[in-house]
């Protein structure tokens, strides 16, 4: 047992910190650090900066731009990005479809998609959730029917995050209605400019346009855009969602948000109740970060450590708790949520209510906290 980073890892961390804080544009990082919304262009620019340095898709096979890092190094990369306010590489590309294509795709698919996926020349959307399925993904009803070499897709996806920016969408579709529900599912890659694809915005309670419905009406998809085998979709989805959960705890970003709040609301830090709340949160964040390090140190061969559910569960709780503290420190200024920039209220304070409301999603999306508790009680505790 030893606390210090090895010289190699310490050097690695310094290199990351140096790169992130000097090469990724300050304006982009300030936007993240202040909790404002990024534009599509900013996200793309940031990812290209990373990708040029080989830092966008380190989890991928090295032949497709990945890095031969240890788990600890991946963790440090991830934490330093958050700490510096660098937008994380778009998860749909970097953590979801990229690894899937690298693992299950044909050579043609790899050649065609992986480089553009890493550089964000293709912006991917995720087409998994459906209105009547929710956490019960296997009940999906969007169908793809064979017609010659093509598939014809009909149905509806929902909660498609940033779907308004999407060039392509990876979807789970039902290709066989005769078999057990998990076995009839396949994964299709769909060009979102194909006739019959329609993206409709969903307005969220924070007023933002972050998620969408995506409708498919007789959308014709060439057969070579099916990933793996027909019926293999469920297996691929499980692989993909397993990747998603690794490093899903937004520890670095939450620490950063709390540190920023201490600065912006400094005068209220004289209130002993506020100080105690901050101290308690800092301690909880430390415990979580250390747990992330323990998980990293123990995760064997890319398989997610079962305790990663702990990270998701507590990570989102703390993310939400910091947003609540910010709201409470803003006070009446929090009402000016949709005031324009001439507002006499400070920007950080005006953003607190939308951020608080928006982050309620953190414990719902990407495997709700109830699902995480289920995983812990079943997989870890054997209950």
């Amino acid at each position, binding site marked *: 047992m030893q606390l210090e980073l090895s010289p190699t890892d310490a050097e690695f961390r310094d290199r990351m910190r140096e790169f992130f804080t000097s090469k990724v544009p300050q304006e982009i990082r300030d936007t993240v650090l202040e909790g404002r919304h990024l534009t599509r262009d900013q996200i793309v620019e940031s990812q290209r900066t990373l990708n040029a340095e080989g830092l966008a898709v380190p989890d991928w096979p090295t032949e497709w731009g990945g890095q031969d890092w240890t788990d600890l190094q991946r963790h440090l990369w991830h934490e330093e990005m958050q700490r510096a306010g660098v937008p994380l590489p778009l998860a749909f590309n970097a953590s979801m479809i990229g690894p899937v294509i690298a693992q299950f795709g044909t050579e043609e698919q790899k050649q065609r998609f992986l480089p553009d996926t890493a550089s964000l020349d293709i912006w991917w959307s995720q087409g998994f959730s459906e209105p009547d399925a929710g956490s019960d993904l296997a009940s999906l009803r969007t169908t793809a029917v064979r017609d010659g070499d093509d598939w014809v897709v009909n149905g509806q996806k929902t909660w498609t995050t940033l779907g308004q920016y999407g060039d392509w969408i990876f979807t789970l579709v039902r290709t066989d209605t005769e078999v057990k529900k998990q076995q009839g599912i396949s994964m299709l890659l769909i060009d979102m400019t194909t006739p019959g694809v329609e993206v409709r915005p969903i307005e969220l309670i924070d007023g933002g346009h972050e998620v969408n419905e995506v409708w498919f009406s007789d959308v014709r998809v060439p057969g070579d855009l099916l990933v793996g085998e027909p019926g293999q979709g469920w297996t691929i989805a499980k692989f993909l969602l397993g990747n998603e959960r690794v490093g899903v705890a937004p520890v670095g970003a939450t620490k950063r948000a709390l540190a920023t709040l201490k600065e912006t609301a400094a005068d209220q830090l004289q209130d002993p109740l506020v100080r105690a709340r901050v101290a308690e949160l800092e301690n909880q964040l430390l415990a979580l970060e250390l747990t992330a390090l323990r998980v990293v140190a123990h995760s064997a061969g890319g398989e997610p450590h079962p305790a990663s559910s702990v990270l998701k569960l507590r990570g989102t709780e703390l993310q939400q708790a910091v947003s609540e503290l910010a709201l409470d420190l803003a006070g009446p*200024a929090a009402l000016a949520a949709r005031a324009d920039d001439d507002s006499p209220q400070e920007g950080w304070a005006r953003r607190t209510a939308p951020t608080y409301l928006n982050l309620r999603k953190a414990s719902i999306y990407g495997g709700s906290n109830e699902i995480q508790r289920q995983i812990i009680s079943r997989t870890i505790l054997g209950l």
Partner: protein
Amino acid sequence: MDFTYDDEQQALREAVRGLLATAYADHEARRRTVAEEPGFDRALWGRLAEMGILGLPFSEDDGGVGAGPVEIGIVCQELGRVLAPEPYLASVVHAGGLVAALGSPEQKADLLGRLSSGELLLAAADTSPGGRWTAEPDGVRASVSGDAWTLDGVADPVVGGESADMFVVTATLPDGGGTGVFVVDASAATVSGYATADLTRAASVTFDGSAATPLGEAGRDLADNVATISDLTRIMGANQALGVMQSQVRATTEYLKSRKQFGVTLNTFQALTFRAADMYVELELAHSMVDWATMTIAGGDPDAVAVAADRVGLQVSRSGRHIGQEAIQLHGGIAMTAEYSVGVGTAHLTVLEQWLGNAGHHLTRLSERVDDHELVEAI
């Protein structure tokens, strides 16, 4: 000791509920209303005037109905239940309350009469940018020249201020004279309206040598009176929050019964039904405290009202946080959308809380009083 409504109060509740149901039969109607100008339903406002609801708190001499706090609380609960965006709390309870408490007989007859009839919208401008729930805000300063008063400075947020015809402004008097309250015509100020997080409207109001009329006798320090009217508004805000929470608990319960996942309805999952039970507990505790605080007003003791406002403020902040968050969580994604009432209800609870005083504020005030009493007497 009696926690039940009498027949007239029941009838009032039914009448208000019925009227609101015509305007906000479903959440989509509310959503349409807040998306358009002025952010609430002027026709509904007129019907509330006709029913006497806008004049409920004011004496008959002033064109009102002269009802008590319980009746006003009933109205606020019903407004909360459907997330009605009408500025009743801001305009009638808060700004109207200041006029009723401080205005000269002529001012009261004029302003409250027109407020009650729906002709005039008032808004209280009592918060400085960055300020936190004080009866002595320092964002607006009053000056006097001869008999002519003028105001300078900014008030923000002014809830309901976007459409107000007149502001009831809390301002610092010259020469350390304390806090004065003035009436200012909206045309004499610069009003920059915006939507709050729950899509109701507020404004940033700038005074720049704006002509102002003192409420009542000029030049007196009215901080105590301002504080008492804020406390009354808090208690009525708690009634409104109670209505929101009741709707959220009901909606969540219905959703758990009807929504299917993994082939069964959600109420099959005990972890969820137990959490619904905890929501109900919080709701009932808040309900009790709201009734108590509302009844405390009738006693007429400003100190008792101040304590009651802090007590109900703390309880409703805690319950509202719990219920508002759990209602979203137990629904899942659907409650994150603006199309569905539950998440918007959480936004409304958030706005009420930060507008009127959050848990930390109330807890700090109650903490200061901990050794004033041996134990807390309920009755």
